[in-house]
């Protein structure tokens, strides 16, 4: 609403006739439609196709005719114990990783914001992991976490601790996944938290220190309430990304050992590309898309409110 009102006000008051306004509309259509067409062709159309396939028993390898099976694929997925297991794994992973990242990221941002010198350099250094490709991150941690010659075990050994089979034991594999994801994405939370922290007006702190408010009191009543909205944006964003995560699992553990690190994304891949049950995989994918749509709607609504506020 406010945007549109701004636009109307911005056009020159003496309306220069119909033709100008019409050409503006033409220009808008000409400039926007190519972009929308590409998105329709590469994002919307594929999803609609997946929606259609999700009601059939189509298989990409068998080919041939696809038979309509109604909601069969959906009920099969929603009642499958395997899928429930993967959902639980995904939930543990998303909650674990995002919580750790938020706590660590905010801590680092807070510590950096209290420094007066070297802030720029510190921030830049901390941001490196985030810019790396998940392939590089996954491969490299796989090397570092190797049970025999990995540097992590080597360091543990040198301080007298036992060796850990990071990626080859059920429980530790999921923990490793969470640790690696945290290593890569803590900088993301840090970056956004830091933006929030540096935007807190100085005079609030000055007023608080005149009142001799304690550090903790200042943190609780000034810092946190002002940074929280931005931090929530970062957390929601990370949660969506973590829910979609595929590449790190693929590289780091390949879902193993057993199925202990198989997230929903990874399971969809296995059903689609190793099981070749394209119909089932499409239904599975559509269900995931629904979750993502709900999450991203929350995110976008919140973002919208934040922008208007």
């Amino acid at each position, binding site marked *: 609403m406010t945007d549109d009102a701004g636009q109307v006000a911005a056009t020159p008051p003496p309306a220069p006739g119909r033709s100008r306004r019409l050409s503006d509309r033409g*220009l808008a259509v000409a400039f926007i439609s190519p972009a929308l067409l590409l998105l329709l062709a590469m994002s919307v159309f594929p999803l609609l196709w997946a929606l259609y396939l999700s009601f059939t028993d189509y298989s990409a390898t068998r080919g041939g005719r696809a038979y309509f099976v109604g909601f069969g694929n959906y009920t099969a997925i929603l009642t499958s114990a395997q899928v429930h297991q993967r959902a639980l794994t995904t939930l543990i992973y998303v909650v674990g990783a995002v919580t750790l990242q938020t706590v660590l990221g905010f801590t680092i941002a807070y510590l950096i914001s209290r420094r007066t010198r070297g802030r720029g350099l510190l921030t830049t250094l901390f941001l490196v992991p985030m810019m790396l490709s998940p392939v590089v991150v996954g491969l490299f941690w796989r090397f570092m976490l190797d049970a025999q010659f990995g540097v992590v075990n080597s360091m543990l050994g040198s301080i007298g601790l036992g060796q850990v089979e990071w990626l080859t034991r059920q429980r530790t594999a999921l923990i490793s996944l969470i640790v690696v994801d945290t290593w890569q994405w803590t900088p993301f939370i840090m970056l956004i938290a830091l933006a929030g922290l540096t935007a807190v007006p100085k005079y609030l702190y000055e007023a608080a220190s005149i009142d001799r408010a304690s550090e903790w009191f200042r943190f609780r009543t000034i810092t946190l309430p002002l940074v929280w909205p931005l931090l929530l944006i970062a957390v929601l964003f990370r949660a969506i990304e973590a829910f979609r995560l595929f590449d790190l699992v693929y590289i780091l553990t390949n879902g193993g050992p057993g199925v202990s690190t198989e997230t929903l*994304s990874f399971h969809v891949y296995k059903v689609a590309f190793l099981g070749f049950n394209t119909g089932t995989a499409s239904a599975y994918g559509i269900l995931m898309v629904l979750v993502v749509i709900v999450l991203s709607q929350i995110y976008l609504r919140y973002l919208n409110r934040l922008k208007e506020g």
Partner: protein
Amino acid sequence: MAVSVDEAVSTGPARDRGRPARRRGGRGRSVLEVALLTVLAVVMLFPVLWMIETSIKENRDVYAVPAEFFGFTVTMEHFKDVFVGPDGGRSALSVAFLNSVLVAGASTVLATLLGVPAAWAYSRFAVKAKKDQLFFILSTRFMPPVVVVIPIFLMYRQVGLIDSKLGLILIYAAYNLPFTIWMMKGFVDEVPSEYEDAAMLDGYTRLQAFRRHTLPLLVPGIAATAVFALIFSWNEFVFAIFLTSSDSVRTAPPAIAGLIGGTTTDWGLVAAASVVFALPVLVFAYLVRKHLIAGVTLGAVRR
């Protein structure tokens, strides 16, 4: 309100402690904070340093137990292996790097060509249901790639785009377009539309006003946006691994991932390839560091 009352009560004793004591405590805390920050920085940076170190170690040092941190022999063999194949010709990895440059470059150009005009139109004109359109555009970017790749795979198989650079370029352009539009809309919003209005009063058409007055002011923003799109395409893995298979088409991420999986893995080579792959990203990211927040939140959060 209740919270602030509780807080006021709990801070009572601290207030009684007096100023000098608190100042001394403050210095101690400051040292502690610096120490904590240093530890965190070391933990965060160690994997990167270890990767660089591994890439210049000889093979026997790479697998040394316990790990060797200092005093190893420096070698550039692994970097040579990244670019030169065993037969002396071009290595498969170097072909993959060239493919990555081409695919990331072309998809970025395409996303920019489509995205910048759209962003300008969204910023300047009263488009119907503008906000809904913009949110719809951004939400396409949130789709799980593994899910999208299933129908894309079938679609590409039908039209013969499987295992082709063009196929990758198109999907990457679509993948970067929501980001480009959101990011650029922010930059266009910052340029007052009065410039265009004034030019139009001088007799220019809207399009000419855009080309002559707004576009030159947008160049830094376009450059920053393009750099981010370049980084996203360069790092992308899921589409690349499912939509391409042959060495002549494959981009660097699946090619590097393909280095493991045999009976033995040459970790020195993996490290060197990773360093070569990551270096341009870090350089580019440093160049656009001012826009990093907008960039990594897909243009949704701006300062």
